[in-house]
């Protein structure tokens, strides 16, 4: 009898803890300033919360049926694998669209930096002449 009370307490703790994690994640997504800040909440907190809720459900049905249940573990594994992939793709899409960033958001990748992209690399600077013609050389060649 005592075992069931302890198991009920464990399941309740897992359910409430998981729901609190999911709530905190969604609250962070609703209230932060910047897309790159908003990405943090759902990817980490909400995934942890849903994992806790599913493990609580797994323990409940395992105790009820007196045999181990694996379906919930399958959903948990799938969510834990797929959450980082979707977050990575969302970050790539946001970088591609050049979304506005708050001042606190640090780092500027070279791929989206226009100043770094506009400088053409000089192939052989030590040979004195470049394979890529400059604009002045091109105009002289066309004049001849």
């Amino acid at each position, binding site marked *: 009898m005592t075992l069931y009370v302890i198991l009920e307490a464990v399941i309740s703790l897992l359910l409430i803890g998981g729901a609190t994690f999911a709530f905190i994640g969604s609250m962070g997504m609703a209230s932060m300033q910047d*897309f790159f800040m908003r990405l943090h909440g759902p990817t980490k907190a909400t995934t942890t919360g849903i994992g806790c809720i599913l493990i609580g459900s797994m323990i409940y049905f395992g105790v009820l049926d007196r045999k181990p249940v694996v379906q919930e573990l399958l959903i948990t594994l799938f969510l834990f694998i797929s959450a980082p992939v979707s977050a990575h793709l969302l970050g790539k899409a946001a970088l591609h669209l050049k979304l506005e960033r708050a001042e606190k958001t640090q780092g500027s990748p070279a791929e989206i930096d226009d100043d770094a992209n506009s400088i053409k690399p000089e192939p052989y600077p030590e040979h004195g002449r470049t394979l890529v013609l400059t604009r002045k050389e091109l105009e002289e060649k066309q004049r001849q």
Partner: protein
Amino acid sequence: MLDMALTISLALILMAIVFNTFRLVYGPSMPDRILALDTMYVNSIALIVLLGLWLNTKTYFEAALLIAMLGFISTVAICKYLLRGDIIE
């Protein structure tokens, strides 16, 4: 004890879905809305699992698994569309 925990967690998940709806409606950019939908399907899986605990059935887990797979695939598809302008090239 379990009934009270179920009630509290259902209320918390519902409030989380309300926050997601807020971001879905007022999101300034497209990735914000995709992120809101992504979080919303994860929260709806939690809601379905809690409903299964409430009604004491195991019928709803297949629905939860289906929502997980389709939600992930749709997120990847919309992100691909934003990145490339096309889903299947």
